């Protein structure tokens, strides 16, 4: 892979101009950025904290904090990744406050072996989604991800739900790429195992 990028071949992200205008004090530009990312930031906060009120507070705090710190944003990373990082930190802080007896960190629960070895080898029905109504399916998915340790569901949320790259996920969480990969594997396998209870093919009663 070429180490040097020739100028002009790399597309400039549209956020760059909005951030520059916001830095100049253009609040409309900043509001545009809020509009673009409010749903993502809210989802991330909600997935980590599992609490709507907390997620709403965090979303607001994250954007206000981002505005305050805008001068510190250097543009080495995407604005959205930087924003997600602020929201993740706020969310983990909120979790720690709620669970006063237990510390919550990205390192928590990585020691457990649960889900690192698959046990359920049942095939799933061809379109498991179609066996449930939208609301029922969403309920299953929410309850299933709720059961994961915070560190795992955070990695899964950023990488698989929000579609950040592995590198961006590592950056947003302050983890190494290998650490993200190992947590992601466990998160995906644990979710798979748990979803299998709902989606597996029933052995009896199926037409041939």
């Amino acid at each position: 892979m070429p180490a040097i990028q020739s100028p002009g071949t790399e597309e400039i992200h549209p956020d760059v101009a909005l951030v520059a205008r916001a830095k100049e004090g253009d609040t409309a530009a900043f509001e545009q950025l809020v509009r673009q990312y409010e749903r993502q930031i809210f989802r991330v906060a909600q997935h980590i904290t599992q609490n709507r009120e907390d997620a709403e507070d965090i979303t607001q705090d994250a954007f206000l904090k981002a505005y305050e710190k805008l001068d510190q944003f250097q543009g080495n990373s995407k604005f959205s990744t930087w924003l997600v990082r602020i929201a993740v930190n706020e969310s983990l802080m909120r979790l720690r406050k709620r669970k006063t007896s237990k510390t919550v960190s990205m390192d928590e629960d990585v020691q457990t072996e649960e889900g690192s070895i698959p046990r359920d080898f049942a095939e799933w029905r061809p379109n498991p989604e179609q066996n449930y109504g939208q609301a029922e399916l969403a309920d299953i998915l929410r309850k299933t991800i709720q059961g994961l340790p915070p560190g795992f569901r955070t990695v899964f949320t950023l990488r698989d739900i929000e579609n950040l790259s592995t590198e961006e996920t590592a950056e947003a969480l302050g983890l190494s790429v290998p650490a993200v990969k190992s947590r992601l594997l466990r998160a995906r396998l644990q979710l798979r195992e748990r979803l299998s209870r709902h989606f597996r093919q029933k052995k009896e009663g199926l037409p041939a």
Partner: protein
Amino acid sequence: MTCTDFLSQLTDYFDGQISPELLEEVRAHTATCPHCEVVLDTTSKTISVYRDNELYELSNEFRERLHTAIMTKCRPCK
């Protein structure tokens, strides 16, 4: 390739960061190992079912509150 080797390649496989040689090995393994074939298929479905279903929506009431807060608190900053 053993089942353990297969698992250790799974993340790179889904991220499309697997070398062509290893991809060949993964394919050869799942062709002969029904357990790993199921794991591959159902893990892939796990990822897509979460990707395709929005689980948490912002309420309009909160969106309004958020924008009011942003516009009032950010305006005097500069």
